[in-house]
C-alpha cells in the first residue's frame, strides 16, 4: 500500500515547515472550538462602554472591539470556526463528487470516459466563479447553498486527478494480469485501485481545504456568503476594511488569522505532497 506509511510519516516529520503548520493549525482549531470557555465575553454582547477599543491584555477585550463594541477575540474565533467548518464540509462534498466521478470515468474508460472528460473540460473552461455568484444570487443568500456551490467548483480538479490515476493504474500489467485471472471488478477496485489512489487523494483533499476557505471568505467578503448575525473571517475582514484608517485592528485581527490559517494549510498540504511523493500535475 502506497498510503500514509512509515517512510512517508518520517519524511513529513523531518519537514519543519509542515510540522510547525500542523501544530499551529491544531492550536488554531482548538482555540476556535474552545474559545467560548476561555474568554468571558460573549459573541453578540455589545459593550457600549468600549466601542472600538484597541487590543490589549489588560482590558476586558484582548483583541479589542469593533464599532458596536463586540469583542473581536470572540468574533474572530467564531469566524474561524465558521470558515474551518465550511472548508471541511465543502471539501468532503467535492471529495465525494470528484472521487466518484473520476473513478467511474477512469475505470470504465472508452466512450463513457471520453464523454465525462469532455464535461470536465467544458466546465473548467468556463469562468465558474461568475456562475457561483449568479447561482448564489438566484437561489438567495443561503448558507447551505454556499457549501454546494463551493463544492461544485472544487470537485473538477479532484475528478481529473482521480480519473488520471485510475486510468494509469488500470493500464498497468499487474491489473491486466488480475483481470486475466478472473478477478472481479469490485475486487480489483478494492484491492488495487483504491490503495493506489489514497496518496494523491489525501494530498489534493488537503490542498483543496485552503482553496475552499479562501473562496468562502471571498464570497463572504463580497456579501454573498455567510450573513449577519453569523460571521466568517471573510465578513469580518470586509467590516475591518471599512474601518482601516481609524481602527486598523478590526481588519488586522481577522486578516491575520485567515492568513495564518491558509498559510498553515498550504504548508501542511505541500509537506504531505512531498512526503507521499505525489507529482504536481
Amino acid at each position, binding site marked *: 500500500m502506497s498510503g500514509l506509511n512509515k517512510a512517508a510519516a518520517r519524511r513529513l516529520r523531518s519537514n519543519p*515547515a509542515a510540522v510547525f503548520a500542523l501544530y499551529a493549525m491544531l492550536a488554531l482549531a482548538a482555540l476556535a472550538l474552545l474559545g467560548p470557555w476561555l474568554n468571558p465575553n460573549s459573541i453578540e454582547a455589545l459593550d457600549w462602554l468600549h466601542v472600538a477599543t484597541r487590543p490589549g491584555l489588560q482590558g476586558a477585550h484582548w483583541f479589542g472591539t469593533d464599532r458596536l463594541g463586540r469583542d473581536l477575540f470572540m468574533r474572530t474565533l467564531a469566524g474561524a470556526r465558521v470558515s474551518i467548518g465550511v472548508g471541511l464540509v465543502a471539501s468532503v462534498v467535492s471529495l465525494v463528487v470528484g472521487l466518484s466521478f473520476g473513478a467511474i470515468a477512469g475505470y470504465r474508460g472508452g466512450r463513457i470516459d471520453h464523454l465525462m472528460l469532455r464535461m470536465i473540460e*467544458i466546465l473548467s*473552461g*468556463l*469562468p465558474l*466563479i*461568475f*456562475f457561483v*455568484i*449568479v*447561482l448564489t*444570487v*438566484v*437561489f*438567495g443568500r443561503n448558507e447551505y447553498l454556499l457549501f454546494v456551490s463551493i463544492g461544485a467548483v472544487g470537485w473538477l480538479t479532484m475528478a481529473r486527478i482521480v480519473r488520471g490515476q485510475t486510468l494509469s493504474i488500470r493500464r498497468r500489467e499487474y491489473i491486466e494480469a488480475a483481470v486475466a485471472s478472473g478477478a472481479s471488478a469490485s475486487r480489483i477496485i478494492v484491492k488495487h485501485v483504491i490503495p493506489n489512489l489514497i496518496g494523491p487523494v489525501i494530498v489534493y483533499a488537503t490542498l483543496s481545504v*485552503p482553496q475552499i476557505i*479562501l473562496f468562502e*471568505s*471571498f464570497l463572504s*467578503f*463580497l*456579501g*454573498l456568503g455567510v450573513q449577519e448575525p453569523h460571521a466568517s473571517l*471573510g465578513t469580518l*475582514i*470586509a467590516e*475591518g*476594511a471599512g474601518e*482601516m*484608517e481609524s481602527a*486598523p485592528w478590526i*481588519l*488586522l485581527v481577522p*486578516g491575520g488569522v*485567515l*492568513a495564518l490559517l*491558509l*498559510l498553515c*494549510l*498550504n*504548508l501542511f498540504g*505541500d509537506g504531505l505532497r512531498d512526503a507521499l511523493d505525489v507529482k*504536481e500535475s
Partner: protein
Amino acid sequence: MFRYFLSRLTGAIPTLFIIVTATFFLMRAAPGGPFDQEQALPPEIMANLESAYGLDRPIWTQFGRYLGALAHGDFGPSFKYKDFTVTELIRQGFPVTLELGLIALSLALSIGIPAGIFAALHHNSAADYATMSLAVLGLAIPTFVVLPFLGLLFGIYLHWLPIAGWEPGSIRHLALPTVALALPPLAYIARLTRGSMLEVLRSEFIRTAFAKGLPLRTVILRHALRPALVPVASYLVPAVASIMTGSLVVESIAGLPGIGRYLVQGALNRDYTLVLGMVIIYSTLLIGMGLLVDLLYAWLDPRVRP
C-alpha cells in the same frame, strides 16, 4: 497555422453561446425581477415598465431578441442604471479594469518567471528556500487581506501612496491594487517555473548545450527557457481567471471605477442585461486568452504545430 487558428476561433463560438444561454435562463429562473422595490409598485406601472423592456413577451421571444441585438454588438439597456445602456456602462468601466488586469498580469509574469529561474539555478540553497517560502506566502494570503494590509502600511503609516481612489492616467493610484492582484499568480508562476526549469535542466539537450561551450546565459535563455515555459503557458488562462476574480474585490476596496462591481451589483439587482453583458465580456476574455495560449504552445514547442 492561420487556418488552425481560424478553426479554433469558430470553435469558440458554440462555447460562448452555451454560456450566454445558461446565464440567460438561470437569471430568469431566479425569483424576483429588476423592478422589485421595498414598496411594491402599482401593477399598472409595473406592467408599463415590463412592456417597455419587453419583459412581458414570451421568454423565447426575449431570448431571440437579445441574441439578435447581441449580433450587432448591442448588449441592451440596463434595467437598474436607467439612463445607460450596458454597452455604455462597459465602455466606461472596462478600460480601468483592463489596465488593472494587464499591469497585474505583466507584473506576475515579469517577476514570477525570473524568480522561478533564480530559485531553480540555486536549487536547494538558502536563496531557493527563501524564494519558495515567499511564494507560499503569496499564494496563501488572499488578495482582500493583502490589499488592506498594503494600504495600511504604504498609505496610512508611510503616506507614500493613496489607498483608494482613481485619477485617469495615475499610476500611483493603481500601484497597490495591481501589486495585490498580481501576488497570487506571481507566486504560482514562480513555483511552476522553478519546477519545470529544474526538470528541463536535467534533460540531455541541456547537456549538449553545455558541451557546445555556450555561456550559462545562453544555455538558460535560448535552450532551457522555452521548454520550461510550457506549464506557465498552460497556467495563463487560470491566471487571467484569478486576476478577474481578484479584480472584483480589489476594485471595490480601492474604489476604482472598473466593471468589477457590476457583476455582483447587477446580479443582486436582477439587472439581467448587465449581468449577461459582464459574463460575455469575461468569457470572451478567457476564451481569447485560451486562443493566445494555443499560439504560444506552437511557439514554445514546434512539435505541437499542426
